């Protein structure tokens, strides 16, 4: 018994050193040497200022000011979509809790609240996009535009979602629709191995590319 106890304690400490210290340090070393960009999160910087990460979805919205102060509602700043940019998917992540926290929305399939949430998002989407795409109806809205992403920071939208938003972005930026659609195509990623997953449009990269085309032309 005593012998087993001694071996157990040594073994737990030994494995902790091997699996908890040596192994992660080795992987960190390899990652930082061979893939430094990836290992540090594919950061996007403009003039030395960190804009975000290509892999982490962000909101392309403006803060709303009232009497010179940021308007707040329930401890969250009120925002409105910036029409010059493609918009990301709805998120269940609640920045008021903790800035870095990611959360599931956990909307149940048969809950009335879920339906009401969808209806509100549908109305907001139509209000934003329909003025520029008159033929748009509820049934034509792709699900990714209304359904919450899992991580809350999904960096991608579907192609169908991007094609609808392209009407607005092109109009607001005074660009030909074909040019915006060409950019969408450029930032569309294919399926993994040719079959795994769905094609994705990376919203941050697409918006950055648009700014390179006409950054100055603010509305």
């Amino acid at each position, binding site marked *: 018994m005593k012998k*087993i106890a001694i*071996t157990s304690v040594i073994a737990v400490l030994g494995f902790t050193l091997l*699996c*908890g210290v040596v192994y992660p340090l080795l*992987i*960190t070393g390899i*990652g*930082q040497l*061979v*893939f430094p960009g*990836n*290992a*540090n*999160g*594919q*950061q996007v910087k403009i003039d030395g200022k*960190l804009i*975000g990460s290509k892999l*982490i979805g*962000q*909101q*392309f*919205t403006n803060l709303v000011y009232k009497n010179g102060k940021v308007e707040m509602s329930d401890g969250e700043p009120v925002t409105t979509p910036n029409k010059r*940019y493609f918009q990301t998917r709805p998120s269940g992540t609640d920045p008021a*809790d*903790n*800035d*870095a*926290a*990611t959360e*599931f929305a*956990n*909307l*149940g*399939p*048969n*809950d009335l609240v*879920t*339906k009401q949430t*969808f*209806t509100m998002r*549908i109305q907001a989407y139509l209000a934003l996009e329909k003025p520029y795409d008159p033929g748009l109806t509820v*049934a034509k809205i*792709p*699900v*990714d535009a209304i*359904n919450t*992403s899992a*991580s809350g920071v*999904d960096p*991608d939208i579907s192609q*169908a*979602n991007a094609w609808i938003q392209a009407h607005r972005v092109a109009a607001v930026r005074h660009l030909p629709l074909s040019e915006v659609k060409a950019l969408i195509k450029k930032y569309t990623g294919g*399926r*993994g191995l040719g079959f*795994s*997953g*769905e*094609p*994705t449009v990376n919203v941050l990269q697409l918006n950055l590319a648009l700014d390179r085309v006409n950054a100055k032309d603010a509305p």
Partner: protein
Amino acid sequence: MTFYGWVTIFGFVIILTALAAPFGRYLAAVYTGGHTWFDPVLGPVERLIYRVFRTDPNEGQDWKHYAKSLIIFSLAGWLLFYIILRTQTFWDWTGLNPLHYHSMPWNVSFNTTSSFLTNTNWQYYGGETSLSYFSQMVGLTVQNFLSAGVGIVVAVALVRGIASRSGASLGNFWQDIVRTVLYVLIPLSIVSAIVLISQGSIQNFTTYLTAHGLTSGGSQTIAMGPVASQEAIKLLGTNGGGFFNTNSAHPFENPTGFTNFFEMLIVLIIPAGLVFMYGRMVGHKRQGYAIYGTMMVMFLGAVIVCYIAEAHGSPAQHAAGLHTGVIHGSGGGNLEGKEQRFGIAGSALFDVVTTVTSCGAVNSAIESFTGIGGAIPFANLSASEVIFGGVGTGLYSILLYVLLAVFIGGLMVGRTPEYLGKKIEAREIKLTVLGLLITPLAALFATALATASAAGRASISSVGVGPQGFSESFYAYLSQANNNGSAFAGYTGFIQPNAGNLGSHGVTFADLVGGVEMVFARYGPILFALAVAGSLAGKRVSPAGLGTMRTDNVTFVVLLIGVIVLVGALTFFPALLLGPIVQGLTGHLYS
């Protein structure tokens, strides 16, 4: 449903089988003292470790000695892990706690320690808002390796018991655990972690980033950390505890459609490989194929139902007027709580892969799955981890079912049941049934306790929303009993009021019931499996006769599936009816 969705599912099955068969041969070499490629490098390291551990790897252990080593080793691991979690701020000097997170309260730490020790990885906390990099590496990652190792060595010991021709020895626990970590888990983890980083997973020790965003409302904090190293072993060891709260849905854990496919493969590679190893170690490869066939039939059934249900969409979507069919440029389906890059097939398949095993990693919100789609993880858990199951756990659990099926088959033909020439007698069957009943018993008892008491209600997020609150509670205790760790994530045992984690507190009832349940439902079956192994080890092998029931043909596979489904259905059907099935059969919206 899309063509690519079906290619993903069937392509996965083919690639997995093609990889698992040769890997099984490698595993057999590791556990029977055969030669492997790694011998020249790892051999000296292995011998050094035995010297440091002060143990003789060649000393055979009977089942009691083997079990004693395993239990005391686990106890030591539990204590060290608990201490690490409770002294989180003490380790700030390492620089690995950039946000100066405080330790989680004692009750949440108790639950977390029990959870990672038992290969469950149930998480009441969010990784990026509670744990330092030090705790994640030195605490969680280590137990990801060791809990996986413990599961595997129990399976190996049971296989030795079945295969042994004489003596009571099941092998040596210390040799088995060292060889598992050294020859199996570490090499696979290193390769997998590097693949993940090459695709975009992060691996660093820098503090969280503050990003300004392109627009004024776009500023955000981005959590960092040594993610890839933990992600690799989290999947390989069927652990499943995410570095981040949203687990494998988080782009830093699972950046692309390719990594999603890769992650599913590394979840199943060891459980599937062990089945092929089994066939080799008992000297009848067809025995392994029969078990593999049984698992695969049930696996495919689960995936197909789940994919169809999720592609159809949810009642809430339809009530809101959304079109959930495939259109040009969008895969449609129930995309609530799912990531665009994985799509419906990649989410449904991932969900089934991680709930048939004890992995419990998620790349989508199970709580938001449709009634029938969400019933699939329930059904998988009800089958008590025998459809591939956790690393090791799956093999020893299904072998217990095999013994039960042999016994029932024997009763039907009126002959003394035999398995691989060994008589299955009253003692083995009693131990087998006890081993199989502990998990369901723990799950149902804890669920009943939680749903019948006011203390249990504190954890439910959908209070009063029809069957969803019951589903949440049931899933929580079913998942913890099966050492799975996936969740209907609305169920909580930890309240974090605001930024940082000062002032957070645990829900003692949920933390303690869950923690005790996990330990009970892990070590109970392990002890019974080892006892069965010990009982079989000494038995004489009689040659197969004309009347011997074969255990390597289709008839036996059908019988085995029947027994598994029957036991699962009889135990869990009433409870399943009250939750997911009600939701799946009605389009009703509950308020």
